């Protein structure tokens, strides 16, 4: 049955069936939510430190703030193993293509947090060298205000992101786009 559907050009693909939680498929919607719940508690961020905010990001992993309470302390140096990019600091035009490349190297599903004023909008640095907001080149999920934000603020952003992931829509979106 499924094979037949997949081979027929005008019929919806398996990905499309999975992607639309509103198509009446109660089972798949629930599975998405379960997967989302798993994912939300094991977000592995990319070790991607740019500027001042990176130091606060490091503080967050250290003993006082202890990010590991929320399952996100495993910072991966390789984008292939990461699913969260924290743009921690000002992003220069020279760095921008590399940041984009790193994002594209991350496997799906993936999320982006713009940490601090510079990553959100350029901050105090309205100059020729700085990208005025990481959202010029990356799809940002959460913006964290502050210059730099306190570690608690970044923690709050990660908890908010977890709530977002738990809805399960990300799994579906990824399959819809044909990405793994």
């Amino acid at each position, binding site marked *: 049955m499924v094979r037949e559907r997949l081979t027929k050009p005008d019929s919806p693909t398996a990905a499309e069936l999975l992607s639309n939680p509103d198509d009446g498929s109660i089972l798949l919607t629930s599975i998405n939510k379960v997967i989302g719940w798993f994912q939300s508690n094991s977000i592995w961020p990319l*070790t*991607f*430190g*740019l*500027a*001042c905010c*990176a*130091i*606060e990001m*490091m*503080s967050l992993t*250290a*003993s*006082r703030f202890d990010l590991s309470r929320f399952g996100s302390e495993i*910072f991966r*140096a390789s*984008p292939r193993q990461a699913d969260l990019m924290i743009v921690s*600091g*000002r992003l*220069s*035009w*020279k*760095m*921008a*293509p*590399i940041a984009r*490349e*790193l994002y594209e190297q991350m496997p799906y599903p993936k999320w982006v947090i713009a940490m601090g004023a510079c990553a959100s909008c350029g901050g*105090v*640095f*309205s*100059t*020729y*060298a*700085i990208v*005025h907001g990481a959202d010029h080149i990356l799809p940002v999920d959460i913006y964290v205000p502050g*210059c*730099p934000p*306190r570690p608690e603020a970044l923690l709050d952003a990660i908890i908010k992101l977890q709530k977002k992931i738990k809805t399960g829509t990300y799994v579906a979106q990824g399959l819809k786009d044909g990405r793994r």
Partner: protein
Amino acid sequence: MSTAVDERLQSALGGLAERAYVDAAGEPVAVVPPANLREAVKVLKASPDTYCDYLSFASAQDMIPRVPRFDGIYQLYSIKHHHWFRLRVPVSDGEALPSLADIHKGADWHERETYDLFGIPYDGHPDLRRILLTDNWHGHPLRKEYDHQFEPVWAPGTNVLQNVAEEGMAGHEAAGEDPAKTIVLNLGPQHPATHGVMRLAVELDGENIVGCVPHIGYLHTGIEKLSEHHNWTQNITHYARMDYLSPMNNELAYCLAVEKLLGVEVPKRAQYIRVLMSELTRIISHLVWLGTHAMDIGALTVFLYCFAEREKILEMYEAIGGQRMMTSYIRIGGVQDDMPESFPGMVEAWEKTFDSQLSIYHGLLTKNPIWRQRTMGIGVMDRDTSLSYGLSGPLARAVGIDWDLRRDNPYSSFEEFEFDIPVEQTGDVYARYLVRMEELRQSRRIVLQALKKIAETEPGTYVAEDYKLAPVPRDGINASIEELIHHFKYWTDGIWVPSGEAYGFIEASKGELGYFVVSDGTAHPQRVKIRGPSFSNLSAFPEMIKGHLIADVIATIGSIDIVLGEVDR
């Protein structure tokens, strides 16, 4: 003293200089035509009276509409006599300046930076390429006509990543005997051990390093350009974010430079608070260095200890300046607010345990055989090469250069404090480690002395009492119309600084941090040149790792203690 130095400069340079004068701080400046520049620098270096063996920075200033348009600026220092000289070299647009890269090796990167930001070419430079911006960048940002908010546009189809890949070993001829045997390994800009966004292209023969080309500029922010568009007080905000591991050091160096131009006397209490905070800053900066350096080599525990200790000082930052990192606490003419009454108690509670913390770090590392094997004999520099590259701070002291600006050119009443300056002789990674560890101990000593001295001063005298420099107190605004006018002028125009030039320098946690500021008599600087210690220290990196193994690259980067925000600015 300054007139004596001035005479020495005159007699050494003789007819090489067009004219000489002293700047706002009384430091001698000579105007030298481009044809005489190399000769002048050589004479200043060789003459026993001047003995300027250290090039602090080479930069330029856009003097438009004057003809010739630019001034090349060279800041020289004598490690032996502890005095500064500045050379100004007028040069017109398109004309080249002679390169100093063979006299002072450190000039190499400084000249590349000037070429990048001003478009001044250098004759005889070994490798004149852009350093901070990409090769295909249009224009030179520090020229006055360049719009500081200009967004770069690349031609459609430009593959920026392709350029990055091709850049690779640019400026480096394959040193290996058989080019087919060597490979080029790219390290960064996304790498956990480069301490930011630095990129290294390393040529390897097996595991041995044959050559290395650092690429920087991935965090170039244009702070120097932005400084020309913001007023004197607003600028403090940017500088804290430059070397973000030691924010108050940056604020202090800049404020010292502007105060030299203004000729303002900073109250003693403010000076002591500055000393206190700059030493606490040195401690948090060194703690981050120690934690990350040890983590890079494999000792993760040290990182956790150091960051826990750092939190205690960040709490003090919050108590005194209202923010964990970027406080903008040190202001022109003093500090932003008086020290809170609870502050000495916080410092005392912290310092009681700090010594035992230090012995924990020593216990974990100093005699640890793995640590010693990874650091001893690695990244060795000799004294002459270090000086030639303009290395300063702990890196210079690790090769036996007994030089510390806090003692040799004291600022902010440092002459009243007692402290020792650790000097090591071997010049390897381990020596740098020992120097910084001892500095932590000495900084604690200074902090305790500063607390005592602050207690002897009168509370409330934290800023110069001049309403042209410092904001009017809140109750003063309601009291008289004159103070209301001052309040209004201060918060709209900011400070007006008399025209002139000055160089403010401090011994920051990473070395000699200097701000060369030029005012044309308005509310905005005409030019701010930031001499970041990490920039010069990093330029010697290829020299340090020559002949080592690839794993030693990581240990050496950690020992330089670079902050890319300061390298790229």
